[in-house]
């Protein structure tokens, strides 16, 4: 079964990469699915989609390989069949989502990855926390999906009224919207709805509360969710439908602000978090905020390039974290330290990932982050730009802190850490290599990104130009700042020891546990809902007299409503 999973993963990875080579062809396939509503099951090889699919396929494959060893401990208690079944379904659904040529197919797979994430986060179902986290992820993302579904049916209805043969077709809808055939008020509803769906799925402010809790998942699944599959879906959706909603004057700025606020808020939270995986979770929300903001600056290239780079370095960081947790049996960074001596490969690869996350020049995260800044500057979105620059500084600080607490300074662990086996270090090394060189691919990337996307604007950019562009721009100061922070903090901490607090961190824990008190905000509504439910159930007495009374009230109410309408 495991060999089968690895084989499927490998074939998938090869095929998704091969798709990139096949760019430029016509729609891959469309079969009749629900003729009754003219819905086809169609896949289309768009530039944005095929890279998202390739990320899902390749990183998914590495995560499966990594799982072989990493999941061994859990196999005694939980059946691995369920794990591999759901993992492959998860990866496959994400690929299908990215390649879908119509909204209905996209919706189905969108919900399917939601279900897979629910089942995988709650994989260790004997722990109540895991079960709760799974349900939370499902409910919160589906809360955002209210908007997506409403948007889809509104567009469907509008397209049907236009007499389109393919009422769900994404490109068809975009072209109808651009030619002004879809009424603006319907487009507004759909735009707000799609944004809500993307905010839920990509864990953006204010629906970011589910992602840190989702760290209850096995680390491989966290890597999948954060890098390869789930959270990318929201960014993909926004980027894909960008030309359609760019018509709305509020849509782009709103997206940029949502992204920027999410990025800043979670970067602050990551500064004081003690759980290694949760720091990474906050950093994911933060980096997704960059991508959101880039879409808000109407830059498909910046958002998607950052998505690609982020997927590589975040998968790397998560798998490294898994390796560390595997060795130390804790997720609390205050109980780690000094691991560089015991785990050389994990150490080096983690350092590479950290630098990419912090935006140190020449690592892949730097290039795409800079592209995001450039895009925002070009679009004149000053507010979000300023927030994101502040976030970049915070990112450098928390990522360096995370690295330092884990690998540098004296060892504070009671376990006897050792390097992980090759099934785990091999994926790490490959991802580390990718983090170093993926930006060199930019020329080919930009030439294929605009594929099959007639309404998106993607400029061709060669490596040389990228180099020139980035280092010639005043925004390079941000990269230099990141380096400076690394040097200064490195010097301070190597003299005074790692930044481990002396006493308990009540406030810090409170703020991070509640994700900046947003758990309380949403918790309030849930409590309110349950309170209303309690009040309502008081009226359900089970007493026949009252039951009959309700019948009478119902009759009178219906009569009154008729009288009211006259």
């Amino acid at each position, binding site marked *: 079964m495991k060999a089968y999973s690895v084989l499927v993963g490998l074939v998938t990875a090869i095929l998704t990469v091969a798709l990139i080579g096949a760019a430029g062809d016509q729609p891959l396939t469309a079969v009749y699915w629900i003729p009754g509503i003219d819905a086809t099951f169609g896949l289309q090889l768009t530039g944005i989609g095929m890279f998202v699919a390739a990320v899902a396929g390749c990183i998914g494959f590495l995560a499966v390989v990594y799982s072989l060893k990493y999941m061994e401990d859990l196999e005694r208690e939980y059946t691995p069949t369920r794990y591999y079944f759901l993992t492959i379904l998860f990866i496959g659904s994400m690929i299908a989502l990215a390649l879908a040529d119509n909204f209905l197919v996209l919706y189905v797979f969108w919900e399917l990855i939601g279900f897979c994430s629910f089942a995988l986060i709650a994989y260790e179902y004997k722990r109540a926390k895991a079960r709760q986290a799974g349900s939370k992820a499902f*409910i919160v993302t589906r809360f955002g*999906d209210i908007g997506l579904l409403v948007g*889809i049916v509104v567009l469907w209805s509008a397209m049907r009224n236009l007499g389109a043969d393919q009422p769900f077709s994404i490109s068809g809808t975009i072209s109808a919207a651009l030619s002004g055939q879809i009424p603006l008020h319907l487009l507004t509803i759909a735009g707000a709805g799609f944004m809500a769906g993307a905010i839920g799925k990509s864990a953006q402010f204010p629906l970011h509360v589910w992602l840190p809790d989702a760290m209850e998942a096995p680390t491989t699944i966290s890597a999948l969710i954060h890098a390869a599959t789930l959270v990318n879906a929201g960014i993909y959706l926004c980027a894909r439908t960008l030309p359609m909603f760019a018509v709305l004057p509020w849509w782009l700025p709103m997206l940029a602000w949502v992204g920027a606020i999410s990025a800043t808020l979670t970067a602050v939270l990551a500064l004081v978090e003690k759980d290694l995986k949760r720091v990474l979770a906050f950093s994911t929300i933060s980096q997704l905020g960059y991508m959101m903001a880039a879409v808000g600056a109407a830059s498909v290239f910046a958002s998607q390039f950052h998505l690609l780079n982020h997927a590589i370095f975040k998968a790397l960081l998560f798998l490294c974290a898994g390796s560390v947790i595997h060795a130390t049996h804790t997720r609390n960074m205050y109980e780690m330290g000094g691991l560089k001596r015991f785990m050389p490969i994990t150490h080096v690869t983690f350092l590479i990932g950290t630098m990419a996350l912090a935006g140190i020049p020449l690592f892949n995260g730097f290039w795409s982050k800079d592209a995001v800044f450039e895009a925002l500057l070009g679009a004149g979105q000053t507010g979000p730009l300023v927030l994101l620059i502040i976030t970049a500084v915070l990112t450098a600080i928390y990522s360096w802190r995370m690295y330092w607490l884990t690998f540098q300074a004296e060892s504070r662990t009671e376990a006897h850490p050792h390097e992980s086996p090759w099934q785990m270090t091999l994926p790490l090394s490959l991802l580390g290599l990718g983090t170093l060189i993926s930006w060199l691919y930019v020329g080919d990337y930009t030439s294929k990104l605009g594929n099959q996307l007639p309404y998106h604007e993607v400029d061709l950019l060669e490596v040389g130009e990228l180099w020139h562009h980035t280092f010639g721009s005043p925004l390079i100061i941000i990269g230099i700042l990141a380096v400076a922070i690394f040097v200064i903090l490195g010097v301070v901490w190597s003299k005074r020891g790692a930044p481990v607090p002396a006493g308990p961190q009540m406030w810090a824990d409170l703020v991070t546990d509640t994700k900046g008190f947003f758990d309380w905000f949403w918790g309030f509504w849930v409590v309110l809902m349950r309170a209303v439910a309690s009040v309502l159930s008081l009226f359900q007495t089970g007493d026949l007299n009252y039951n009959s009374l309700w019948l009478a009230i119902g009759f009178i109410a*219906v009569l009154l409503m008729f009288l009211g*309408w006259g």
Partner: protein
Amino acid sequence: MEVLLAIAILSGAALLAYVVGRLSRSRMLTGFIAFVAIAGSGYMVYQIWNVLQDGMPLGWPSAWAQTRLQSYLVANYLGIFLAGTALLLAALVAVYSMRYMHRRDIGKFYALLLLMTSGIVGVGFAGDLFTLYVLFEAMSIASFVLVAFEREEWEPIEAGVKYLVISTVGSLLALLGISIVFSWTGTLDLAALPSLLEAQVGSAQLMAVVALIIVGFGVKAAIVPMHTWLPDAHSAAPSGISAMLSGIVIEAGLITMLRALIALGTVNYGLLLVWLALVTMFVGNLIALRQSDLKRMFAYSSVAQMGYIIMGVGLALGYPTLAGFSGMRGALYHILNHAVMKGGAFLCAGAFLWILGTRDIRKLSGIGRKFPLMGICFLIFVLALAGAPPFNGWFSKVLIAKAGADVGGWGIFMVVMLVLNSVISLFYYLDALNTVVFGPIPEDRPRTLKPLPFLVVLPIVALAALSLLLGVLPDAGLVLVDPAAEYVASLIGGGVDVLVAAGVH
């Protein structure tokens, strides 16, 4: 003739099942008779379908007798849809009950089940209000007795009495409405009434009649606040009957109401139904959050699901030209889906009840792990009810939402409310799932539990497979749903040609 046979086979077999059950006391034999009768009725419905496909009218008795008797049956696609759904579920419940029921008076059980099914099949084919009412009552009376079937215990008796009283008041209100109509027009023919009542349009009396019909049949359709009997009845009944009640009986009540309302013509009651649907789904979902009894939780969720269905019906009736077809299509498809997923959910709950003798969700903790096949089926039904692809509930919810979007304006607001409700429902569905399937196994539970009989497992697995099939290939259900929706749309003035011209079809 076929129409009569579809109903008469079931009623006749009810008699036979009673006699055989009384004499042989064999559950298997009696159940087999019921199954064969249901299959035979299904074959007749298939024949009716074939005749209708050829474009021939079909009814009983002959036209000559119709004018004199004023009571007749007529074949139509709505009836075929209702009969098909009901017979599918009834056949599986008949199989399920062969081993699930363990009482000596099994003959009565199957006789009543068949009688109830014949009533449901009948209300779809009734040609006039009198026949409609009689068959509706046949269904109701059989269901009262079935709810109180385990008469040694107090709970079913209490539930049965409540159900009887409330339902009877409702039926009398409806009967009063029907009598008023008869006093005006001198006929009860569903086809003739709309033109005869045109003179009454907008009159206060007609509104009163419509209110009587909505409230009267609305009791059976579990519209809030007339739903109060439902949670008791659905949770106390034997599980197979719970599945029938939730899966098709309350929907049959709605279709009865729909057929009567269509005949009453053009008072704008669609808006009223939409608002009632909104209240119904909120009340059902919110109270379901508070339930610790698995079958009660499903009962309240049925109230909520009826809210979704009534929303589709209300949009169709309120805006026949905009949403006449799409609203009916969503509502009818949801009836089909609900029969599959809620029927399955109740059968599943029944299986757990059979093993452990409790319906308390906390006491059922982890049972789905002990019986993995049941656990998977339970997961499928629960997710289908929550509207998660690839299980069947999602598609009909999307169709109902489409109807709201077709109406536009506040219709879109209603769609938002509908989808919000399906998120609220996720709270209790996932809670139940996390406890019943993934929860810890209590210490005091015996290590070896009695195994589930094959005939209890089979219908559950069949429904789960159907749930997956209808979710992955929704077109399979549209074959049955679309002609019925077109039929209703043409009756309410959103005729198919109108719809094609408007590009809605």
